[in-house]
């Protein structure tokens, strides 16, 4: 999609968000422009994952306004296919690696599926031969890479990553950092990352929004 750089990709006004009607996140005002990767930093329970679920259009706000590129999100489904998210504990479909990575492309009716699957696998350091493997033949680290590849293949405007370095080794963490920067460089993705790994974050972005107890504590001016 074409992004108007003068309009924030996301604009949140007086948002209250939670589960089963119980608020766990309150955001008075937040604007996210297409200026490069942004990280949401905070301890466990600070509301990072809830905020990411909201921005991925997985969780509707209890109240308040969520705008995507200047239009109200949700009502017309605006933005829902322009964002994808890697869950903290990714789930692989009970299918082959190829089918996992191709799933979203097929759901969007995209063409040249095979070449995009191969490209996405190569981005995460997996060879095309890997595509034939089945979900239960993968190690935890490989499964996470396949899940990441399935999101990268979509080349969405917004790429949300919830604790992408949780339970991964140093080498994989650096690969994920590189992939995030590649996504920005190759198709202008806006990566939004929830993490508490500040050391790793240094290699990705300095734009950080600090969260605490379900509220934004500090954000870049």
């Amino acid at each position: 999609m074409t992004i108007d750089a003068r309009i924030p990709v996301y604009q949140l006004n007086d948002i209250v968000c939670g589960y089963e009607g119980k608020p766990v996140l309150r955001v008075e005002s937040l604007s996210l422009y297409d200026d490069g990767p942004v990280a949401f930093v905070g301890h466990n329970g600070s509301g990072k994952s809830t905020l990411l679920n909201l921005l991925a259009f997985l969780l509707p706000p209890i109240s308040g306004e969520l705008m995507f590129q200047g239009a109200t999100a949700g009502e017309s489904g605006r933005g829902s296919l322009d964002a994808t998210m890697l869950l903290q504990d990714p789930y692989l479909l009970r299918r082959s690696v190829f089918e996992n990575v191709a799933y979203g492309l097929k759901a969007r009716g995209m063409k040249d599926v095979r070449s995009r699957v191969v490209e996405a696998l190569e981005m995460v350091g997996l060879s095309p031969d890997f595509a034939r493997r089945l979900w239960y033949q993968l190690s935890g680290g490989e499964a996470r890479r396949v899940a990441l590849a399935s999101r990268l293949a979509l080349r969405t405007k917004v790429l949300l990553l919830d604790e992408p370095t949780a339970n991964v080794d140093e080498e994989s963490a650096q690969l994920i950092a590189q992939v995030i920067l590649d996504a920005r460089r190759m198709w202008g993705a806006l990566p939004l990352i929830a993490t508490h790994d500040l050391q790793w974050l240094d290699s990705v972005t300095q734009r950080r929004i600090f969260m605490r107890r379900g509220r934004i504590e500090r954000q870049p001016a």
Partner: protein
Amino acid sequence: MKGCVILNFLSEGFLQGFDLLFSGDEEVWSAVFETLKLSSLSMLVSLLIGIPAGFALGHFSFPGRRAVRLLVDTLLSIPTVVVGLFVYAFISNRGPLGSFELLFTTSGMAIGQTILALPIIMALTASAVENTDRRLRFTLLTLGARGRRLLLSTLWEARHQILLAAVTAYGRVTAEVGVSMMLGGNIKWHTRTITTAITLETGKGNFATGIALGVLLLSLSFVLNWSVSFLRGRSAA
């Protein structure tokens, strides 16, 4: 002494039974083919109704859902003769469906067996859908699945457990006697199944035929249980 007589009795029965099987005894194989025809028909109808109904029961929230679930779970253990009795009342000449002349036909028996299999398919499909990984929905949504694709993909993720439900239901319908006896009448060359034939032949003292059919039923049971074991391993992976 009595034990020896029984052992001889059974071993002779086994030998004669294998002879009947491998010599292609028409009466034995007629019961086998009737069993396969009947169970295939009842399973086809049960799966066509049971999978969508079970999916709806496990996936959607609607008023009365718990009551429906309780009813389906109760029907899991309904005795076959009770099903036979109720269906008999409906399809006998004096019943509301008497004009269709379904009593003592394969179709009539299939109705009864469908009623036996349907709760199994529905309950196990509902459980399979309810027990899908909680991350599945978010994963499908983040990949762009919507509407029908979202529902079908959820169903596909539960496919191994649903196959397991089908195998379990198939085991129930091939092993039952009550419905086949009451609704089929155990008519030779026509509605006689493996189980009703075993009952009849044993009553007549023809152990060989009974054992031949019993061996076939056991083989079928072995194949089903092996499939269940394989599928359990697959779905746990």
